[in-house]
């Protein structure tokens, strides 16, 4: 593994150097450049950057493994994380680009002529982004510790410093062009092993064709795998365990959530005009589809190959100790890569029946592959395909590229939410552009520090990141943005009611079934609500609409939060799966939340007064690509 280690170090250092170089070249001088890369990124480049922004460490390292283990059920991620781009391109991106501002809360605040709506949007954006970024930093740390043998903490900090460097210096402009480079690194690193694996197992270099092709014995690969898995006691690969309704709900929540995620939406603010936003979404999906149609093929190849070469193979203790090279082992022995990965702890073998051979079974009593990390299916591919050591280094650099590019995009959302939406638009309206840039950069630094902490000491809720991020985006952002564009009658009251309904319902369901409302959790929630109430009080004070009741409730909530944190509040036990609403998992509940959000928003809007004329004119304007200037409600100065 020594030359592999050197190659890994080489690729990691080389790619990091490249990212820093791009950052220095693409420094941002104005808020326009910092937030939206000056609105002049060509659509294809933006598509590439969006793809890198979108595909996280989880897409790169874990998705193929998740599909390999869950078979048909894994389809929810494939459809869910690509189908959302159709919604983005058709329903949101061109209109939001025509609107022409910097952030998602910008749109919500202006369209609904309300500081309260803006603040609710800021809080959603911050919560979603922090959950997501913590997972990315953890991924960076794990990649470093597995491959470069440095402690996870050091890995997290090194990764964070790199992201910080180009995000703080270059803002959106720096991030965009680094993401373009990161896409190239990650897609090359994913495709090279996949192509060789496909050649080896199905004889075709195109994994997508190999997926529907035949195995060496002439029967279709998938049929082969189904039969083998059933023989070993597993579920057939092409059948799932989840109910149809649950699969439907998860796929829809992921799609709608994708379209509502702030770090994805802001990427479409960077292109020159509305028609470019559509093209750009198309390019983004092309670049994403390259990986997303390869991943299910890799999943099938890897699972088939794993069973073929590992199951019933003779385990060599000498090879495991490194006393004899694995290449010298006789036919029918456990392959060399198995020992290599066993040393990292991602694979584990316990010889229950003492026959010296590995039995891979569904039944835990007889299964001897006691540890099988899902990431192994991507990580071990280069070795399974007999590729040289440098390819492993490339895969590690690819995984880091995927994690860093996503982290940077999220950092941008956090930074702009604090500096632009919170400080400039709510708390300190008189801020100059220079001050705003300074705040944006400081916010990015602060966010990175929090992300480092979250990466080193991952809080429990990071495990529920998919459910939280997509569920909340689907149930809070998507309905208000969609109605804001397609229904002129939609008003402030409806938006606030709809967003809160979606947010509270979905949030409560996920917490109840994923974490449980313990005293500490209740305390944290109360503190978040207290901060929200305080910001709302301060933010609406300038408009003269503030009530002292807000300040009192903020104080009361803070007190409740304190009680919760010291453990005085009741611990409500976590819900069990048989209590799921209609059998819908927390990952899919965003769909239910979204429907309720739509229903409440529409009903409340119809029961309250129509929005002001200038807001209706604004909606009229964003629907037409060619008309430029449009009136904006309130005291927002012209850009």
């Amino acid at each position, binding site marked *: 593994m020594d030359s592999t280690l050197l190659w890994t170090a080489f690729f990691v250092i080389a790619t990091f150097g490249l990212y820093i170089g791009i950052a220095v070249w693409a420094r941002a001088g104005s808020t326009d450049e910092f937030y939206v890369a000056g609105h002049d990124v060509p659509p294809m480049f933006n598509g590439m950057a969006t793809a890198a922004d979108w595909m996280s460490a989880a897409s790169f390292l874990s998705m193929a493994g998740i599909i390999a283990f869950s078979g048909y059920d894994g389809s929810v991620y*494939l*459809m869910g994380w690509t189908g959302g781009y*159709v919604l983005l391109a058709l329903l949101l991106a061109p209109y939001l680009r025509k609107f022409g501002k910097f952030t998602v809360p910008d749109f919500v605040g202006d369209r609904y002529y309300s500081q309260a709506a803006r603040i609710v949007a800021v809080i959603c954006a911050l919560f979603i982004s922090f959950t997501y970024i913590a997972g990315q930093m953890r991924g960076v740390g794990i990649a470093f510790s597995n491959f470069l043998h440095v402690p996870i903490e050091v890995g997290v900090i090194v990764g964070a410093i790199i992201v910080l460097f180009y995000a703080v210096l270059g803002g959106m402009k720096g991030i965009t062009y680094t993401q373009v480079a990161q896409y190239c690194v990650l897609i090359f690193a994913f495709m090279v092993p996949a192509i060789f694996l496909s050649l080896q197992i199905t004889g075709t270099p195109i994994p997508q064709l190999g997926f529907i092709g035949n195995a060496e014995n002439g029967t279709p690969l998938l*049929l082969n795998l189904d039969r083998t898995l059933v023989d070993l006691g597993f579920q057939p690969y092409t059948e799932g365990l989840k109910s149809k309704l649950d699969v439907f709900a998860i796929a*829809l929540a992921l799609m709608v959530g994708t379209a509502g995620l702030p770090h994805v939406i802001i990427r479409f603010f960077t292109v020159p005009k509305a*028609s470019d936003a*559509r093209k750009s979404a198309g390019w983004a999906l092309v670049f994403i589809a390259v990986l997303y149609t390869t991943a299910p093929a890799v999943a099938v190849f890897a699972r088939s190959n794993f069973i073929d070469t590992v199951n019933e193979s003779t385990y060599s203790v000498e090879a495991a100790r490194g006393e004899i090279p694995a290449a010298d082992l006789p036919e029918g022995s456990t392959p060399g890569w198995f020992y290599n990965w066993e040393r990292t702890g991602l694979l584990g073998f316990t010889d229950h029946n003492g026959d010296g051979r590995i039995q891979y079974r569904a039944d835990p009593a007889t299964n001897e592959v006691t540890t099988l990390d899902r990431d192994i299916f991507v990580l071990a591919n280069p070795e399974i395909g007999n590729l040289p050591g440098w390819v492993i280094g490339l895969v590690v650099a690819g995984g880091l590229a995927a994690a860093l590019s996503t982290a940077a995009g999220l950092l941008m959302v956090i930074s702009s939410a604090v500096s632009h939406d919170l400080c400039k638009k709510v708390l300190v309206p008189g801020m100059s552009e220079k001050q705003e840039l300074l705040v944006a950069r400081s916010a990015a630094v602060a966010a990175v520090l929090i992300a480092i902490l979250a990466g080193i000491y991952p809080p429990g809720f990071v495990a529920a990141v998919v459910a939280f991020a997509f569920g909340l985006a689907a149930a809070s952002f998507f309905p208000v943005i969609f109605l804001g564009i397609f229904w002129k009658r939609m008003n402030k009251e409806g938006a606030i009611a709809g967003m809160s309904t979606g947010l509270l319902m979905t949030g409560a369901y996920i917490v109840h079934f994923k974490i449980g409302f313990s005293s500490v959790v209740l305390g944290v929630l109360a503190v978040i609500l207290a901060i929200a109430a305080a910001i709302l009080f301060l933010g609406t004070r300038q408009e003269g609409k503030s009530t002292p009741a807000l300040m009192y409730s903020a104080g009361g909530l803070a007190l409740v939060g304190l009680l919760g944190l010291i453990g005085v509040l009741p611990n409500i036990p976590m819900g069990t799966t048989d209590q799921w609403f209609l059998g819908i998992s927390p990952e899919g509940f965003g769909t239910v939340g979204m429907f309720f959000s739509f229903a409440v928003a529409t009903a409340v809007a119809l029961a309250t007064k129509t929005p002001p004329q200038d807001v209706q004119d604004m909606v*009229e304007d964003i629907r*037409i690509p*060619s008309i430029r200037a449009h009136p904006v409600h309130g005291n927002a100065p012209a850009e």
Partner: protein
Amino acid sequence: MTDIMDTNTPHQTEDHDVTEDVTKAYWRENLTLMGILLSIWFAVSFGAGILARDWLDQFSIGGAPLGFWFAQQGAIFVFVALIFVYSFRMHQIEKKYGMDDDND
């Protein structure tokens, strides 16, 4: 040179003066196109990949059951096509109503 410049000028409407009727007709065409494309979006993913999957699995594409293939590959290919079709058709519609942003 001046000839070409002169023939081009009349097409450029400086203030984009569009009447309400034109705007309505444009918006209706956009919504129709959107409706058609979103129906296809729904049909290939939720339809073929989930709801009608068991029935479709009696057919196969290469060595893969068709419903399963739609859920893991087919739907994604169609998604990509849908966005480019929308982008291309919308551009035509916008040009027809003089609302394109080509000169912006």
